């Protein structure tokens, strides 16, 4: 493991400081540097707050700004932020209309956000949307259920735009829950990942192996398989996704091909090229796409494909202007 860093313990803090200073027209640190928030808050708008462990950048800090998040709380690498960070973000960004917390489904994040929400009960209106788009995980009953992965960015973009359009807290909660039922993601890794703290890789693959059904914390996936060519990998992913969701005639699809940090963009576009064709062959109208490195697992080589089935409203919110470090558009690509 070679990294540009000084000490593992200070890596996240140093990097956050660089981020905030590079984007100082967009964002500022919250009190005690517990979170990053928009420089300019909008009174009367529901505040959208998310967060999670570090190591997934640009998510979530890269999504703070007009049209998306109001604040993001970053924990240590692959470790949820703590309730005091989230409480501080709520207190500083709630301008009266309440706060919507967007949480990736994973017990650590859930519990920390829950403790924060409990701590501010009575003082702030709080709703929580839990994102659980990772179909690689054996679903409930009784287990923790599916992880929240790259689909989180779709939820954050759309709810961010809806909040900007002054949708109220209850409306946002309902929209978010509905969205979450129409988003599916599956990921494949070509290598494990080394967490700077321990300097050990989470799993090690042979040169001809890939790990299928991985999340974004370097944890092992659902199965280890023989490395296949791009066509084979793409169709395995698409088939697994399509087996898990029922298509409706009115759906328009947003397809996200997301790199995990160590996979260069051309490979992502290559996969997108196959995936788009496969989806279209199943009668899905691919109306929008996003290809890039957005929801990462440090420098892991690998990628995930996300299928989001949107209605007209969802599409409109996706297209709405956004101005953040990682996503920027006025009207969609013109």
């Amino acid at each position, binding site marked *: 493991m070679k990294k540009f860093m000084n000490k593992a313990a200070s890596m996240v803090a140093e990097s956050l400081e660089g981020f905030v200073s590079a984007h100082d027209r967009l964002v500022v640190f919250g009190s005690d540097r517990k979170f990053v928030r928009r420089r300019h808050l909008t009174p009367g708008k529901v505040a959208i707050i998310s967060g999670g462990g570090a190591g997934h950048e640009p998510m979530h800090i890269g999504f703070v700004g007009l049209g998306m998040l109001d604040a993001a709380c970053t924990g240590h690498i692959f470790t949820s932020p703590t309730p005091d960070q989230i409480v501080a973000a709520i207190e500083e960004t709630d301008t009266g209309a309440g706060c919507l917390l967007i949480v990736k489904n994973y017990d650590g994040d859930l*519990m920390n956000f*829950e403790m924060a929400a409990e701590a501010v009960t009575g003082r702030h209106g709080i709703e929580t949307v839990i994102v659980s788009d990772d179909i690689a995980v054996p679903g409930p009953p*009784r287990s923790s259920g599916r992880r929240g992965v790259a689909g989180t960015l779709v939820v954050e973009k759309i709810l961010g735009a809806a909040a900007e359009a002054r949708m109220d807290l209850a409306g946002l909660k309902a929209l978010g829950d509905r969205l979450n039922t129409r988003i599916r993601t599956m990921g494949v890794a070509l290598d494990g990942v080394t967490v700077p703290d*321990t300097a050990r890789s989470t799993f090690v693959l042979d040169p001809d192996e890939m790990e299928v059904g991985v999340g974004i914390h*370097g*944890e092992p996936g*659902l199965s280890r398989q023989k490395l296949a060519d791009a066509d084979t990998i793409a169709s395995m992913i698409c088939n697994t996704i399509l087996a898990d969701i029922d298509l409706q005639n009115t759906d328009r699809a947003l397809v996200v091909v997301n790199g995990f940090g160590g996979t260069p963009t051309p490979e992502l576009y290559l996969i997108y090229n196959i995936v788009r064709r496969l989806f279209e062959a199943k009668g899905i109208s691919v109306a929008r796409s996003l290809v890039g490195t957005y929801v990462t697992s440090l420098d892991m080589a690998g990628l995930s494909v996300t299928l989001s089935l949107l209605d007209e409203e969802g599409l409109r919110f996706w297209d709405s202007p956004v101005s953040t470090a990682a996503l920027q558009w006025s009207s969609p690509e013109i």
Partner: protein
Amino acid sequence: MQTDRELVLGLIEACHEAIVIHADDLCELDRAIGDGDHGTNMRRGCEAVYLDRERLCSLPLPQAIETIGMTLVMSVGGASGPLYGTLLIEIGRRLGTRENEADFATILGEAVDAVARRGRAHAGDKTLLDVLYPVQTEMVRQSALINIAKRAEVSAQLTADMKAMRGRASFLGDRSIGHVDPGASSCALLTTAICRYLREYRPA
């Protein structure tokens, strides 16, 4: 008989030492079925508590325990932070409102239930609860400290046969079977450290 001050200081030091020594082992366990950071997380928490030990040991025992719980919540993060934090916060709060120490097994039982609610977890889910429940049972039985510690260690080992239903390891499905749960392991380590300390400095 020790003062609260000595007791709190002794327990903080014992727990801190146990975690620092075994942090790498805990990460190793977490790498197999999680994200490899349980040792790092626990060490960060124990170090935050350790740094604050002078202030903590000046507090009455119940407040000291509750404050330690809050420090853990604010420094550990991840899944283990809220869980260990809830355990200690609940113990501390309840200790503060009860009359005598004889209630401790009951108090622990209530605190463990709070942990289970916080984690939406049950016995057999392959988590630290699979050590906490048996430890609590031994306490109800008023077992000797050495037996409580032994039961904790055995219980942690038994999680190897379980399929994880909660936490990151649950994402692995059947592949989680065959590995000891890191949270159960840290819980056994702490139980043993506490029991050993109490045996040495507080002989019954």
